[in-house]
Structure formats: C-alpha cells, structure tokens
C-alpha cells in the first residue's frame, strides 16, 4: 500500500494498486462548505481503476468542487470545509497524518485553462521529476511523457522553446504530459477541452482513451457528447435550490450507457433530454 504521509512516489517505481480492478478513489461527501455556504451535500462518487469517470451536471452544481476535493486542491481555499471521507486506495486522504502535498503527487490535475509554466517545454515536463528528486534519464522520461500526450512529433525539435509559445491545444497536451511524467495513479481533469477548438478537443479525447490504459481518470465536462464518447462511468450532479440555498448533490452514478439511455432518476432524464433537444 502506498503511504501518503512520507515521501513522494519515486517517479520510476511501479504505481501502486493498478493491477487489480476496483475503486481508486472513493469519495463519501456528506457536506462541503465554503464559509457558511453549503456548496455540496450527500454525494458518494467513485473513480474506478483503469476507467474514465465523467462528472456532468448544470453549472454551479459542484462538479469542480468535488473534483478538487479528490486531491485536496481545495485546501488552498481558506474557507473550504469538507465533512465526510475521501479514500484513495483505501486511505483517508483527509486524515490528520496525511500530507496534502504528497496526495497531489499521486493524484495529478489538468485544469480548464491550459497553464504551462513560463519555462521551456522540456522543463515543463521535467518539473514534476525534479520536484520528486528523480535520479535517472530525464531525456527519456520527458520524451515518453510527450509521446503519451501525443505532442512529441510537434515539439521534438523545439524542446528549449518556452511552453507558452505553443498553441492552446498544444499547451493543454503539454500540461497533460507534465501531469503524467511522474506517473500519478489518478488524473483529474476539470473541463480540459473547454478552451479548445473541436480538432484539439478530438485529439485530447483520443488521448484520454489511451491514458486510461494506465491511469484512472476523472473528468468534468459540460459537453454531453464528450461524456458519451470518453466516459465509462458517469456521475450526474444537480442543484437543490429549495430552502433558499444552491446546494449541489449527486443524483446518480453508473455506467455511461445506462445514465444516458436508461437513467434511474427523473432529474437525470430531464437534464439529458434537455441537453439533447
């Protein structure tokens, strides 16, 4: 079992817990508050090993909030409070002994806006390796990550160029390469294609399908077609505006086919038929 309270993963060592199938992250959210504002309640979502889990739902229903709770990114927001538990390969990542910095090294993140560092393409990808004090062949690691991200052929002759000089779609693939260079166990993606054109979107979708061979992926998307194309499992969230609040909650989670073609809940059915009409 992987330890979350000691050192970071050695980038070279095999990643823990991928041989079996099962649940990589199991989040039992009772309540998430921002200050006094109840943002999310009663949501039990699971990210399965070796699969892509899609998070869908109307704007403001807490998809990003839940996603960012899965690697403790929300800890950076002082008013954030979570009640419930989030387990990663069986360990509660909100336990007192856990170092959130280590959690984030196992559970990588790709953001809505491409956000490469203002440094060379090579250094962007090598960043996580250096952070983890990786001793070994950097060139090889960087090339492998760029190849997996489908960017190698486009950048192999300009690895010393600044990452910000790439196009938006290339930048997003660079961010994916950066995230997978250290071999995280899970990859969280918050609307990774929303700033991209349809062609770049297609490239990234194909990439995700490749990536799920090795990583467990959770992706927030506003695009129903995208969820249908890439997600194995889908979690549908909605907003409860009774009692004057705006509280997001999980309506149902299941196989993507089932959610889209045979939803158990009326809310899901209404949302999906609304989105496709």
């Amino acid at each position, binding site marked *: 079992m992987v330890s979350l309270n000691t050192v970071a993963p050695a980038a070279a060592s095999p990643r823990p817990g991928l041989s079996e199938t099962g649940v990589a992250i199991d989040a039992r959210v009772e309540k998430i508050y921002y200050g006094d504002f109840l943002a999310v309640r009663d949501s039990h979502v699971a990210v399965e090993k070796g699969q892509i889990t899609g998070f869908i739902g109307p704007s403001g229903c807490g998809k990003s909030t839940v996603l960012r709770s899965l*690697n403790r*990114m929300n800890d*950076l927001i002082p008013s954030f409070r979570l009640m419930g538990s989030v387990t990663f390969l069986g360990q509660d990542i909100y336990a007192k002994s856990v170092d959130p*910095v280590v959690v984030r090294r196992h559970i*990588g993140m790709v953001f809505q806006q491409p956000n490469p*560092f203002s440094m060379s393409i090579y250094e962007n990808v090598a960043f996580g390796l250096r*952070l983890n004090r990786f001793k070994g062949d950097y060139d090889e690691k960087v090339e492998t990550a760029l190849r997996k991200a489908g960017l190698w052929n486009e950048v192999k002759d300009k690895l010393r160029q600044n990452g910000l000089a790439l196009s938006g779609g290339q930048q997003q693939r660079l961010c994916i390469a950066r995230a997978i260079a250290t071999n995280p166990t899970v990859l969280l993606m918050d609307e990774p294609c929303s700033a991209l054109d349809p062609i770049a979107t297609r490239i990234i979708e194909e990439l995700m399908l490749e990536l799920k061979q090795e990583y467990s992926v959770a992706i927030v998307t506003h695009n129903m077609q995208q969820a249908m194309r890439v997600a194995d499992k889908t979690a549908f969230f909605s907003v409860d505006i009774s009692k004057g609040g705006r509280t997001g909650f999980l309506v149902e989670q299941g196989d993507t086919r089932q959610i889209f073609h045979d939803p158990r809940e009326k809310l899901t059915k209404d949302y999906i038929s609304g989105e496709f009409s």
Partner: protein
Amino acid sequence: MTVIEADMNRKPDVPSLDHSFSDPRALRNTIQTVLLWIVALLASVPLFSVLYMLITRGGARLGWEAITALPPAGLEMGGGFGNAIVGTVVMVGIGALISVPLGVLGGLLLGAIAPSSRMSDAVRFVAKVLTGFPSILAGVFVYAWLVLGMGTYSAFAGGVALAVRMIPTVMLTAEQAVRMVPQRMKDAAFGMGCTQTQVALRVTLPTAMPGVLTGVMLAVAGAAGESAPLLFTALFSNYWIGSLTEPTASLSILIYNFSGMPFPNQIELAWAASLVLVLIVLVFNILSRLIGARRV
C-alpha cells in the same frame, strides 16, 4: 469636394474608409497629437540642454587619463578620477549584494507568500515611506549606526547606506512582478504537489525574474548617482581603495567636491566625472528596459 459629394460618387451602401480631415473626430485627434508633441518637446528641452552641456564640457576632458588617474591636488594639472569610479562600483556592488537578496525575498513575501498578512502590510508601508524619504537620512542613519560604531568612514558603511536606498526599490518592483504571475500557474504548481515555498521559488520567482531584474537595474542606476548617503558614510579619499574599512572616493562626491573648487582643472574633471556617471546610470536604465522587454 465635400463629404456629401464624395459620398454620392459611391454605391450608397459602402461606407467611406478614407482619411477625412474635416471630420471633427479626426480633427480633434490631429490637434491633440500636435499639442502632445509640442509639450513633449518643451519638456525635453532641459534634459537635452543638460546632456548637451555634459557632452561638450565633460567630453572635452574625458580620456584615458581622466578615468585611470588619481585626483589632482590644488593647483596641479592633469589627473583624473579612477579611484572614484572604482569606489562607486565597489559601494554600489556592496549595496546590491545586501539589497538584492533582501529585496527579492521581501518582494516574494509581499507578493506571493503572505500578501495580506499584517507583517506584509507593515513591511510594504515602511518600504513605501523609505522610497519617499530624503536620501540624506539614509546617510545620517548609517553614520549614527556604523560610522560611529566602527570609528571610521568606510566603503562598507557607504555600501550599507546605498543598500538602505536600494532595498525599497528592489522590493516594491519585485512585489509587482511577483503579483503579475498568473494564479493558474501557481495552481498548476500546487497541483503537481509543490509546497508553498516550492511554488514561490520554482515557479513564481523564475516567472517574475525579468520584472525583478528590471527593479534591480533601476536600483543600481539610482544608487550610482546618489551622493547624500555617501557624504556621511564613505566620505572621500584621494587614493585608491585599499580596504572596505577606510574612507572611499565616489563619483558623486568627487563631482560635489570638485565643482565647488576655484581651480579650472578640477572643474573640468567634475564635468567629465558627471558625464561618466550619467553614462553609467544610462547603461543600467537601458539594461532594465531590455530585460523588462524580454518578458513572455
């Protein structure tokens, strides 16, 4: 031909895109541009007349001897201000050695690590006050603290006094540069598993580096031209600098001393030294521009 007539010659649904000087908007624009040019020219008259005087009067005397020889005594002919150039470089160097690490770390604290803490508010307030302080107070402060303490005027004390002047500039420009680093880059670093310190040192600071260096260059340019802080700290010397703990010459104090003397030779040298000083300041200003423009 009036606008109306011109309009009739075209297909009615195609608007004219040509320049039209009779259009009130264009006219106002032209008048404003001309006015701005006049004001800009007027404002640069003093600047260019100073430059002109410096180049004609200082340039006449500027030569190898002037920048390598020691200052002449009383009625002696020839001589130069080589020791003052070295002294200025040494003391500005000491100032930079002290102010750059402190200023950059301070800027990082103010801009990235704890932007709204009480400590940052206090530090920022003090820095802003210090930039507006008469520079002679830096000299008096270091005089009371170091010169009296060490029992001698020294290059070290001069460097410290310059550092007092440089720290606020370095720190406040570094803060601005650090603040310009987009939050999403920092989020990316946190998402990779960086601690707060690692984010600041590995992402924020490198990204802000061009802006930080701009501030450093400006501070160096400013310090090279300072005279008041050196008056009570480094004093002056007619000899080459031998150690950091003895009175030391500087260009600005040499100019101050020599320009008041009744000897034409010294007055000429004061002009030449002024030209050298202006060139040094100019070079660092231009460097700061070049570095600042290299931003991504």
